C-alpha cells in the first residue's frame, strides 16, 4: 500500500488511530482525532502523549504496549471498565448520559523492532448509553419486583401459582400455611399434593369456596379458597388463593355458644318470673289450709278445693317447663307450624314480665298462616325482640303512660310479613346500623349480653333464610301519637 492510500484510509476512517512507540511518543495522529480533540497532528507528532493528556495512566498503557509487542498480538482496554483513553468532550445536548466519549481501545503491534504499536480508538458512546439506560431500567424493574414481592408476602392470603398443575411460585404465607420449611420444598409439588377437592381445581369459581384442607402431616384447617385462570404470555396459569379461616370459625363457634348460653340465661329469668305467681298460690294455699287445720275449721270441701288448686297450679308449672324445654330444644329439622299459635306461646313465656312492666300487647295475627321452618329458633328470635322492646319501654315510658307493643302478621302472596313495633321512642340514628352486631348493647353491663338482636338477625337471615329490617316509625294508637322501633321480618312460606 503506498503512503497516499494509507493516509486516505487512516484519515477517513470513523475511529481514532494513533501510531505510538513504547516511550509514548506519537508518530501518527489521524484526522478523526484532530477534529475531535482539536489537536493538530503537527502539534502532537514527536511529542509524548502525556504532555497533552497528563491523566493517562502511563504505567498501564506502557504495559499493554509491551504485552502487544511481546506477544505480537493485540491487547485491549475493555470498555466495561475503562471509560476512555483520550478524554473527548461530547457536544451532545439532549438526552445526554456521559460527558466524555466512551471508548473501546485496541492496541496492535505495528513494528516490533522499532517498538511501534497502533492504538485504535472506537467510539462506543451509543452502546454505553444503551447499556447505562438498560441498567437504569433493570434497577427500576428490580425495585418494582421487590415491591411486588413485598406485597405478595405481606397479604393475609396464601397465594400459589400453578402452571400445568405444577407449583411455580408461592408466597411466604403459603409456605407457612402448608407447614413447609422452604419455598423450594413447596415448589417441587403438584396441585394434587395439596389435597384439594377435584371440583375446586377444575371448576371456574366466581365466589370463594369454603373447604377443609388436610396438610401432608395430616393436620387440617378450614379455609376459603379461590382459583383463577390467567394467561401470561400465552401460557395458562392457575392462581390459587387460600385464607385460613380456622380462627374465624373458632370465634364464630364461640359466639354461637355464648349466644345459646345467653338465651338460656334469659329463659331462666323468664321461668323465675313465670313461676313466682303459681308458687305463691301453692304456698298460700298450703299455709292457709294448715292454718285452718290448726284452728280446726278445715272442712273436707276446703281441703278438696285447696288440693285441687295446688294440683292445677302444679300442672301449670309442669306445662310451663314443657314449653320452656321445647323452646330451648334445638331444631334439627324444619317443621310445619302455625304462626299465630307459635307467637301466642312465646307471649305466654314472658307474659309475667310484660305484666310487671305494665306493657299492653296489641295483637293482630292472621290465624291460618303456616310456616315450614325452624319453629323454636323463630320463637327465640321473636322473644329477643319482645325483650328488647319491653326493656326500652320500661326505660323510656313512665308507668302511668301508655306502654305498648304491637304485633301483626300478614300473608302477602307467598311471603309472610311479621311486624313488631313498640312506643319507646325509637332507636337513635347513631346506633341504628349497629344493633344487629354481636356484643352491641345499650343496656348496663350486667343487664344485657349484646347478643339478643345479633342472635335474632342470625336466626332470621341465616337459618330461616328470611329478612329482618328495623326502622323508626310513627303511628297512632287509640288517639295517641306514638313513635317506636319497627322490626319487619319477612319469611317465605312456600318451602
Amino acid at each position, binding site marked *: 500500500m503506498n503512503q497516499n492510500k494509507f493516509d486516505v484510509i487512516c484519515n477517513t476512517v470513523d475511529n481514532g488511530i494513533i501510531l505510538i512507540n513504547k516511550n509514548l511518543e506519537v508518530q501518527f495522529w489521524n484526522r478523526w482525532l484532530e477534529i475531535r480533540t482539536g489537536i493538530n497532528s503537527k502539534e502532537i507528532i514527536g511529542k509524548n502523549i502525556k504532555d497533552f493528556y497528563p491523566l493517562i495512566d502511563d504505567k498501564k498503557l506502557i504495559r499493554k504496549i*509491551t*504485552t502487544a509487542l*511481546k*506477544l505480537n498480538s*493485540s491487547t485491549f482496554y*475493555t470498555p*466495561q*471498565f475503562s471509560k476512555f483513553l483520550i478524554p473527548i468532550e461530547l457536544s451532545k445536548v439532549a438526552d445526554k448520559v456521559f460527558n466524555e466519549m466512551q471508548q473501546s481501545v*485496541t492496541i496492535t503491534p505495528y513494528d516490533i523492532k522499532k517498538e511501534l504499536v497502533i492504538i485504535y480508538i472506537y467510539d462506543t458512546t451509543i452502546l454505553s448509553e444503551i447499556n447505562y439506560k438498560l441498567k437504569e431500567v433493570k434497577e427500576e424493574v428490580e425495585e418494582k419486583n421487590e415491591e411486588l414481592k413485598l406485597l405478595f408476602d405481606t397479604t393475609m392470603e396464601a397465594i400459589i401459582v400453578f402452571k400445568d398443575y405444577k407449583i411455580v411460585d408461592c408466597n411466604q404465607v403459603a409456605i407457612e400455611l402448608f407447614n413447609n420449611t422452604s419455598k423450594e420444598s413447596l415448589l417441587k409439588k403438584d396441585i394434587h399434593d395439596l389435597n384439594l377437592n377435584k371440583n375446586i381445581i377444575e371448576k371456574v369459581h366466581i365466589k370463594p369456596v369454603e373447604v377443609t384442607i388436610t396438610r401432608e402431616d395430616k393436620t387440617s384447617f378450614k379455609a376459603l379458597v379461590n382459583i383463577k385462570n390467567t394467561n401470561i404470555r400465552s401460557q395458562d396459569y392457575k392462581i390459587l388463593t387460600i385464607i385460613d379461616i380456622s380462627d374465624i370459625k373458632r370465634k364464630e363457634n364461640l359466639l354461637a355458644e355464648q349466644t345459646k348460653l345467653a338465651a338460656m340465661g334469659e329463659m331462666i329469668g323468664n321461668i323465675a318470673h313465670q313461676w313466682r305467681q303459681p308458687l305463691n298460690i301453692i304456698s298460700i294455699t298450703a299455709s292457709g289450709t294448715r292454718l285452718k287445720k290448726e284452728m280446726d275449721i278445715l272442712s273436707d270441701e276446703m281441703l278438696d278445693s285447696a288440693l285441687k288448686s295446688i294440683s292445677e297450679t302444679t300442672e301449670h308449672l309442669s306445662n310451663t317447663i314443657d314449653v320452656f324445654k321445647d323452646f330451648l330444644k334445638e331444631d334439627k329439622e324444619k317443621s310445619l307450624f302455625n304462626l299465630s299459635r307459635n307467637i301466642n306461646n312465646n307471649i305466654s313465656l314472658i307474659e309475667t314480665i310484660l305484666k310487671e312492666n305494665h306493657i299492653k300487647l296489641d295483637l293482630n295475627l292472621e290465624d291460618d298462616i303456616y310456616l315450614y321452618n325452624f319453629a323454636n329458633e323463630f320463637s327465640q328470635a321473636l322473644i329477643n325482640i319482645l325483650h328488647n322492646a319491653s326493656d326500652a319501654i320500661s326505660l323510656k315510658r313512665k308507668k302511668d303512660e301508655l306502654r305498648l307493643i304491637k304485633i301483626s302478621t300478614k300473608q302477602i302472596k307467598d311471603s309472610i310479613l311479621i311486624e313488631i313495633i313498640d312506643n319507646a321512642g325509637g332507636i337513635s340514628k347513631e346506633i341504628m346500623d349497629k344493633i344487629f352486631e354481636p356484643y352491641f348493647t345499650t343496656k348496663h353491663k350486667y343487664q344485657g349480653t349484646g347478643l339478643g338482636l345479633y342472635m335474632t338477625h342470625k336466626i332470621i337471615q341465616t337459618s330461616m333464610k328470611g329478612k329482618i329490617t328495623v326502622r323508626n316509625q310513627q303511628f297512632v294508637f287509640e288517639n295517641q301519637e306514638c313513635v317506636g322501633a319497627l322490626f319487619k321480618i319477612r319469611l317465605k312460606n312456600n318451602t
Partner: protein
Amino acid sequence: MKSDITLNEDEKDCLQELMNVAYGSATAAITEILDAFAKLSIPKIQIINADELKSYLSKELNFNVEHIISLQQINGTLCGENMFVIDKQSAKNIAYKFGLEEDEVNDEEIADIVLEITNILSSSTISKLAEDIDTNVSFSAPTIKTISSIDQLKNIFISKYEKVIIISTQLKFEDLDINAELFIFTTDNSILYIKEKLNKILDEF
C-alpha cells in the same frame, strides 16, 4: 455429522502435543511479561456435549468464593471462546505481580489485570495452535464478570453447538498462591477443521 465431531485417540494425542507446545510458549510469554516464573499445568483435553458444559463447569469450579470470569471470543476458522476463571484473592495476588501498589488495587484494576492475563493466555496459546494448524485467528476484546454461582452465566452458553472441545489448564506461579483455570471452547466446525488438520499432521509422520 454426529460421529465426526469426536477425536480418536491418535487425534487427541496429536492435539495434546500441539497444545503442550502452545502452552509452553504461553508460559514463556507470561514469565517474560510479568518477570516471574509462571507454570501452566499440562493441558487436559476433553470433548463433551455442549449441553453438559454448565454442569461440567459447576463441578470443576469452586464457587464458594467470588470469581472473576473473563471471556474472549476467538474469530476465524478456529473459532470459539476462551474462558479464564480466577478467584478474587488470586486475581489480587496477580495484580501485585503486575507491579501495582496496595492502594492501587481496586475492582477496576483487578478486572484490567485479569483481562490482560486472559489476553496473554489466549494469544499465546491459540495463536500458536493456529500457526501450527495453518490458519489465522483474531481476538475480540475480552469481557469481564464477577460471579458467585455458575447460574449467573446462564446467557453465555452456546446452544447451537453439539460438542465443545475443552482444553483446560491451571496457572501457577512459583512464589504466589494463585488458582486460575483457562478453558478453551471450540465449536463444531472448528472441531472438524482441527480434526482435518490433525490428520494431515499425522499423515506426515
